[in-house]
């Protein structure tokens, strides 16, 4: 059985990246599919790798690259959601919520009304900071692009938006600041909890994907 050299695999990988298949979790199967087909061809025909590759692409490129990127995003979103629900149903959820709510209550008790409002006002800004740092560290730490991380980026953005909307509705607009601190604390704790869970999901998925794709995948 003729097997392809590391340079041949690298050639296929580069070709796919240049053809717009950016996510490694999608590309890894395509590489194996193409390589196995070429190896089968090399077994029965006396052709070189490049000719076999060219012939394969002439016949299959359209079908191979027709795979709907939106469909993969949809699948990635389902994987993120599944992981998120599993994390949400763990006992950590109650602990984090309690920590956030009682933390806010402690701040509320320690400060006067105006000072507490000032603290609440900086929360959205800090949420941007947290999200940016987490996503930045994750992006810097992974060597490849994964479909799930793009979905996570959108989730973080959505979460930040929700955080700001909830904050503004509950704290500033509808209830008024003076007599609705409890509602504000509850709302902020719920959205803050979702944000913390999302960060946890991001790290769980990062660990899983790195283990699957970066420890086994060809070393460049």
């Amino acid at each position, binding site marked *: 059985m003729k097997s392809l050299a590391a340079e041949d695999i690298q050639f296929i990988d580069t070709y796919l990246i240049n053809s717009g298949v950016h996510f490694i979790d999608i590309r890894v199967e395509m590489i194996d*599919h193409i390589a196995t087909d070429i190896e089968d061809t090399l077994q029965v025909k006396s052709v070189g790798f490049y000719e076999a590759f060219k012939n394969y692409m002439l016949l299959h490129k359209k079908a191979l*690259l027709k795979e709907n990127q939106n469909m993969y995003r949809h699948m990635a979103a389902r994987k993120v959601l599944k992981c998120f629900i599993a994390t949400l149903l763990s006992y950590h959820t109650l602990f984090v919520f309690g920590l956030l709510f009682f933390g806010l209550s402690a701040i509320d008790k320690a400060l006067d009304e105006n000072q507490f409002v000032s603290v609440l006002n900086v929360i959205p800004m800090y949420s941007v900071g947290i999200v940016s740092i987490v996503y930045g560290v994750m992006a810097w730490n992974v060597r490849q692009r994964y479909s799930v991380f793009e979905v996570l980026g959108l989730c973080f953005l959505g979460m930040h938006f929700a955080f700001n909307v909830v904050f503004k509705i509950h704290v500033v607009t509808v209830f008024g600041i003076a007599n609705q601190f409890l509602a504000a604390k509850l709302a902020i704790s719920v959205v803050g909890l979702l944000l913390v869970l999302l960060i946890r999901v991001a790290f769980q998925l990062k660990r899983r994907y790195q283990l699957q794709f970066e420890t086994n995948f060809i070393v460049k």
Partner: protein
Amino acid sequence: MYVCSIMRPTNLYKGSLNTIILKLLSTHDKMYGYEITQKVKAITKGELHITEGALYPSLHKLEAEGLLEVEFVKVNNRTRKYYRLTEQGTKETMRKLEALENYIKTMRALVSPKFRLE
């Protein structure tokens, strides 16, 4: 999603792709994408050819639904992704096969005058 064949009854095969994949996996411990396409080609004597554009989205969908679990193995300088049925996947395979058999019976009764449903 594309499933091509020589006689091109494309739409008839389209809806059965997930069942075909699940059935194949139920008779093997684990399989990878290329192996599935070759197995289908061999069983159907080349009548049915599952394209890459049809196969992988279906596999990913079944994985996302929790019907398949995956395993990564390094083979010849590359990573190979193997799929195997989960417990839920095994149950779903049985359900889908039963539904497909009922569908075939019904269709046979409709298109073949001598055939009667029991």
